[in-house]
């Protein structure tokens, strides 16, 4: 059984059951006083290896391929733009990327794809980039999966970055999954923490899994670049330093690379102005407690006063009260605002999975036993039809000053 990825060494296992307790996936059982690992449930996370006092569990080391990791240098970030405007996630990536590059003694480079974007590269340099790779072509005016991926693949192959970060946005996830597969890079989704291992210099990528119930730290030990998408609103935006200097390299690509089989037919902007809850600093969300679709008005009013996005629980979306694009939670969006105000949302685990990383959670519910109160920084027990309009009125006063 030498090909098993994880083995229990029978002579060493004493049946102490420590590993059973340590396994986050319930993959270990005791059979005849020996630990038995169910491969179907095991993720090879190594928790049992670490806890075992008898060195009785071993994870097989994968066959190593000789890749010259030292040929890969610099920290890259993908600069997301829409309609020629650099998106705020890009500034967050520059802020985080700068720290990593400094620790590694490497340069921070931004990759900007678009059309007539030449005068936008200065923004990236002022926010921390040492170098901007600009690919400017009409085909790149807006995001298209195939040419964007092909251009990135071309740049990665030619310039060999050690790390490449991208926003965990719709665009980012669609894009870099293709890139990582083609260049055979490791890709970690939706990271909320990044650090450099002081010994190995590997990128330590931490992300929530299992709806945020478990955190995993992931590395890419033998492949480059180390790619990660980063959750919006978690990292701090880089600040502008107007005096910062850097270089812009205009990269040429072949016409072949810019071809796309899939083509945009049209774009229909969402009508509700406060819709992009992924970007919002404050989100006011409504749930079943609102009782009727027209009552979303009180949520919208509070949101408007706060300049907030409007979110919703699954129940309200399923009832047809608000479009799906507003749904927060497991089958909707994961959001990470500074303040999340939940109005009439009981707080099912699927909803909590989508908002539990908000800095401050305010819950308004008439049921004092509602699970949302266990997560809430501030919980208001009472009638939301009274409390929400009062909050609107009071915040209006506060923000006027």
């Amino acid at each position, binding site marked *: 059984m030498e090909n098993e990825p994880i083995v229990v060494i029978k002579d060493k296992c004493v049946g102490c059951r420590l590993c059973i307790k340590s396994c986050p996936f319930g993959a270990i059982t005791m059979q005849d006083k020996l630990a038995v690992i169910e491969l179907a449930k095991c993720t090879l996370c190594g928790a049992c290896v670490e806890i075992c006092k008898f060195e009785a569990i071993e994870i097989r080391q994968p066959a190593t391929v000789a890749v010259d990791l030292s040929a890969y240098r610099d920290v890259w970030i993908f600069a997301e733009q829409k309609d020629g405007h650099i998106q705020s996630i890009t500034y967050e990536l520059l802020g985080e990327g700068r720290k990593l590059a400094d620790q590694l003694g490497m340069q921070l480079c931004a990759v900007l794809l678009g059309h007539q974007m030449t005068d936008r590269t200065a923004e990236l340099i002022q926010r921390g980039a040492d170098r901007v790779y600009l690919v400017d072509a009409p085909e790149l005016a807006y995001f298209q999966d195939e040419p964007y991926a092909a251009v990135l693949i071309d740049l990665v192959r030619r310039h060999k970055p050690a790390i490449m970060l991208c926003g965990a946005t*719709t665009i980012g996830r669609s894009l870099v999954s293709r890139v990582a597969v083609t260049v055979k890079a490791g890709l970690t989704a939706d990271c909320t923490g990044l650090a450099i291992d002081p010994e190995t210099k590997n990128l330590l990528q931490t992300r929530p899994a299992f709806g945020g119930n478990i955190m995993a730290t992931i590395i890419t030990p033998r492949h480059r670049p180390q790619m990660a998408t980063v959750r919006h609103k978690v990292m701090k935006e880089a600040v502008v330093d107007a005096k910062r200097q850097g270089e812009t390299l205009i990269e040429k690509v072949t016409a072949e690379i810019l071809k796309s089989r899939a083509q945009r037919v049209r774009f229909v902007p969402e009508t509700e102005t406060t819709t992009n809850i992924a970007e919002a600093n404050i989100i006011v969300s409504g749930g079943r407690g609102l009782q009727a679709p027209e009552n979303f008005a009180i949520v919208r009013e509070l949101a408007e006063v706060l300049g907030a996005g409007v979110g919703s629980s699954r129940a309200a979306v399923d009832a047809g009260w608000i479009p*799906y694009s507003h749904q927060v939670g497991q089958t909707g969006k994961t959001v990470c605002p500074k303040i999340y105000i939940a109005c009439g949302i009981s707080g099912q685990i699927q909803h909590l999975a989508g908002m539990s990383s908000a800095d401050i959670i305010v819950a308004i519910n008439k049921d004092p036993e509602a699970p949302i109160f266990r997560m809430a920084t501030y919980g208001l*027990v009472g009638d939301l039809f009274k409390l929400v309009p009062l909050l609107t009125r009071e915040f209006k006063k506060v923000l006027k000053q």
Partner: protein
Amino acid sequence: MHIVVCIKQVPDTADVKIDPKTNTLIREGVVSIINPFDMYAIEESLRLKEKLGGKVTAITMGPPQAENALREAMAMGVDAGILVSDRAFAGSDTWATSYTLSLALKKIGDYGVILCGKQASDGDTAQVGPGIAAHLDLPQITYVRKIEEISATHVIGERLLEEGTEVIRSPVPCVLTVVKEINEPRLPSLKGKLAARKAQIVHWKAADIQGEKANLGLDGSPTKVVKIFTPPARLGGQIFKGEPEEIVLQVVEKLKDAVIAAAS
């Protein structure tokens, strides 16, 4: 058209509870379900077949018991199920998983539209759908909320972006990943359940799909988990009860600075 839907068996997170004392997952008795997003992909594949004719095949990579997920899909009306299962796949990350599934798709050969859920509810990566497209060098439309038009040669789909809807036309074959809004999955019929129970599930091992060992499972996975931990428990904060006017003033006072900072 031969429509292929890729599905994954996941633990039912609705079942997952947190032990308030140890702050760990209570895993006992957690049942396995089809990834919720894949249910929409299955439903859409059946609707496309109703429109175009042809057949729907569901494939899954997973342990032997993932066969149950295929039977559930077949109970809804999927024509055939293929289980891609081998110990050599253990430890697969999204690179190796999309590689393995793409080999199975190559073996199927005559696929038209390939449907996936936008992401799986256990890993939440959303990387396998586009990964399959990359391995097969196919165009993709991700986060599809509606299929406007489909024929043997092309598909027009609406993609849900953060700030609106993008309508994209792609030639077939292509990969589509779907969001919840696209449809309401049907319930399996009694007849369907009975037929699915007896149905023959095709099993493919690593050798059947000609998987290169260096690209499978642990060896084929560039990423490696080094640590798993439970996030620090979010302690319940302050609870305010009483006169609405009073408690609102108290909370506004507490929130004032944060609101001003966030709003600016």
